[in-house]
């Protein structure tokens, strides 16, 4: 954009524009050559490396059993770099894929016997930069207990990338001792890496013994404590026992939410009582987790807390409670209970979830069936009330959407009502039904009818 080289500001600092631009050209040319050279050179080197490795791998795969059994002596291939690399890679891949403890032990014995483990340990100790990072992860994949001290030592490296590689390596071992080493450093603030990396590593290493987390969870503070609580939520088992109960009173909402999540994992005797309490927690996300966990049990005992949940002030809690209720075994009973809350908003949430779960039509059909086969008037009246309630719920949804919803449902209901009218005289309105049921039916049914008749229009 500039047309002349007399730039006063540059002259003021003792620079000459023309020289400056010339230097910038040289810099740009060097930059372009450097970048293009790097791209092309890297491609070339990678290609050559992988080609060589592929060639070695072909040989190794063909002779794999003989190499593993020692029929082909390690002395024959150890010195050949590509062969050794291919054998190491293949052994580690098999270790990763194997779930059989005997096979893992056999592969590890092979790595030890062939001197490959020693070589990897040496690399992880001596090399620097990205080579060390690669070596650390590879060492972890061996799951060898003797690799743990080297990986733990790398946790104290000042470089974040090396720390991360050590965490990845320790995660691959899945050993409790690895978890303890990481936990000690996390709590003291010596290990500061991304939370998801830690979460993954700790989950793997504490899965067999989640109690390992507890002492650290009690002393940890702030964000670290939240991470540990999340790990506990994922790995919880019966081993945590009464400690979980203690943590339901924790001052941190994140911890309480994690406990609520953890209680869905196992058959804790105290789960219902604890979750029931957590479902009334002041924090919405704690209530959300508690309601979600209660929903997993699909038991009638959870109904009171879920009914509270479906009337919750948080939309997410209401939705989760409705989802849990829509999956309960007896939808008709659940509908009756939801109507009992007198909350039209809860009814709408349930209708929406029944629809999402594909249960809405089934419930309508079931209610028609029970209407047709009702043994006595009281039972028939109740089924009619429930049908009307479903209709009112869906109509309410339609009104909120300002669209003609429930076309299909309305047709079905109309047909059902026609059938019912033919069979016997019907009350003219839901209000009449309410009056009738007050006289004849138990008070529960009156409650249902009242809800339908006076379903309050609550705001969003």
């Amino acid at each position: 954009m500039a047309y002349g080289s007399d730039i006063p500001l540059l002259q003021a600092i003792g620079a000459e524009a023309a020289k400056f631009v010339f230097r910038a050209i040289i810099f740009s040319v060097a930059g372009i050559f450097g970048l293009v050279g790097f791209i092309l050179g890297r491609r070339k080197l990678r290609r050559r490396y992988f080609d060589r490795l592929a060639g070695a791998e072909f040989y190794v795969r063909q002779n794999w059993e003989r190499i593993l059994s020692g029929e082909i002596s390690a002395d024959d291939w150890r010195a050949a770099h590509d062969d050794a690399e291919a054998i190491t890679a293949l052994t580690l891949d098999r270790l990763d894929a194997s779930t059989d403890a005997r096979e893992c032990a056999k592969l590890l014995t092979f790595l030890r016997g062939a001197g490959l483990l020693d070589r990897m340990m040496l690399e992880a100790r001596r090399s620097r930069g990205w080579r060390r990072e690669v070596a650390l992860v590879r060492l972890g994949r061996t799951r060898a207990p003797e690799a743990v001290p080297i990986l733990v030592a790398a946790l104290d490296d000042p470089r974040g990338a090396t720390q991360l590689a050590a965490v990845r390596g320790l995660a691959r071992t899945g050993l409790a001792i690895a978890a303890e080493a990481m936990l000690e450093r996390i709590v003291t603030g010596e290990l500061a890496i991304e939370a998801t990396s830690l979460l993954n590593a700790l989950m793997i290493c504490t899965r067999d013994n989640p109690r390992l987390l507890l002492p650290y969870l009690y002393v940890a503070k702030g964000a670290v404590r939240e991470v540990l609580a999340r790990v506990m939520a994922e790995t919880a088992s019966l081993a945590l026992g009464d400690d979980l109960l203690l943590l339901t009173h924790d001052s941190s909402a994140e911890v309480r939410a994690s406990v609520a999540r953890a209680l869905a994992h196992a058959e804790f005797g105290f789960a219902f009582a604890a979750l029931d309490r957590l479902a009334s927690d002041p924090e919405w996300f704690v209530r959300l987790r508690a309601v979600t966990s209660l929903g997993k049990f699909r038991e009638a005992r959870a109904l009171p807390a879920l009914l509270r949940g479906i009337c919750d002030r948080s939309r997410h809690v209401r939705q989760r409670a409705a989802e849990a209720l829509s999956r309960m075994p007896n939808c008709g009973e659940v509908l009756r209970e939801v109507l009992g809350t007198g909350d039209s908003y809860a009814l709408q949430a349930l209708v929406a979830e029944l629809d999402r779960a594909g249960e809405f039509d089934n419930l309508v059909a079931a209610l028609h069936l029970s209407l047709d086969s009702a043994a006595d008037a009281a039972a028939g009246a109740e089924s009619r009330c429930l049908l009307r309630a479903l209709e009112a719920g869906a109509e309410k949804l339609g009104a909120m959407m300002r669209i003609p919803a429930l076309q299909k449902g309305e047709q079905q209901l109309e047909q059902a009502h026609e059938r019912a009218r033919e069979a016997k005289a019907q009350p003219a309105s839901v209000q009449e039904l309410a009056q009738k049921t007050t006289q004849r039916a138990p008070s529960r049914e009156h409650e249902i009818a009242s809800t339908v008749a006076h379903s309050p229009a609550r705001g969003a």
Partner: protein
Amino acid sequence: MRGMLDFLNDSLFFYYLGSNLIYLVLLVVALLSSRAHHQHLASLRLERMKLSPLTPPITLIAPAHNEEGSIIPSVRSLLRIDYPELEVVVVNDGSKDRTLEKLANEYGLEPAHMLYIPHLATAAVRGIYRSGHEPRLIVVDKEAGGSKADAVNAGLNAATSPYTCVVDADSMLESDALLRVMVKILEDPKRVVAAGGIVRVLNGCELVGGKIRRVQLPKSPLVVIQVIEYLRAFLIGREAWARGNMLTIISGAFGVFRRDVVLSVGGFRAEAIGEDFDLVARIHRKMLEEKRAYSIVFMPDPVCWTEVPPTAKSLGRQRARWHKGLLDTLWPNRDMLFRRKYGRIGWLAFPYMWIFEFFAPVLEIVGLAAIALAAILGLLSRTFFIEFLVYGYLFAAMISVGAVLQEEVTYRRYNDWRDVARLILFCFLEQIPYRQMHLIWRLQGIWQYARGDVVWRPMERVGLESAAPRG
């Protein structure tokens, strides 16, 4: 006259130097940041995230306006996304073609009994439908609101998840894109309010059944240049700005937002021209005004593939609209400039947007005029002018090659060496005449905005299934 030309000469020299210095800094920051991110990626276990009950539900919102050509493969690809609790809300924004009919036929739509709370005002909703055989799919049929933002707002009203992801109906998310984009959010759900992924160019890729079979560069030079532009914008610009929590744009084609935060700022502004930039700016404003700890992050690995304009005419319209959108958001937020409470957004990000994005075409044309005038008046130093031109050309090419390098050392989507060679070649070819065309389009945008021409004109598309050559 001489005095004015001298002033322009000095100012524009330093302006150009400043912009190049910023690009260089952004490139270096992006290279470092992306290396760290790449290492972090290696420690992730997406499978674990998928199984974890702590992974929150997401609603994908796909606004569709006359998208009959691409709607079915697009929805198919959305439903194929690998995410534990997914809800897909397609908003048919008053399409005049067979968009809704195609959806109804393909997915057996039925009226849904679901809660629709109009938190955000939108054009009238005509109906809400749920697929008979795909319970995760919801279709909101509404009258045309005249903007994508209006359709997205209707989707936000219908969404039931705490997180929403807005995608274009003509775009394709990779199957693990949502899991990947959620990584940062899961790390710090209280702080991270929005996350954006990378948008890549779909044109030229080989598609089979709504899935990408092979990534390859398109044949059209215009589209190849756009590939470089996207790499530069995402892998350098966004990566670097996000590093300092100064990300001001999350692409409208792919971004995850906390629903409560979007609702708290009033959703997408229906009349906004660049609704994505506008929303992010308002989120920054709200969070900073309320002094809340927050971050808006960019993730370079979750990919959304999108079809870009294949012709100069449609590209010109798109770029003019982008530039109008820039001004349309910067102007209402001008009070954020250089105010302490708006922190680095007010002191760095927005001033950069004003000076080096919005004013760039204006200053460029002023510079060209000054050169012409200097030549007429005999003041032009020919040697210096040529040197400066060469410097500008080479520096811009170097930054573009830097973007290709970034792609090459991290994500390597273009595996064929011929594609890489073409990308490098076009780093040198994009300066003439594309750069000049781009200048004109952006000036047209400013002119249209000044005239009050803010009508959205749809981009010509060929549809996802036919976007690329087969075989």
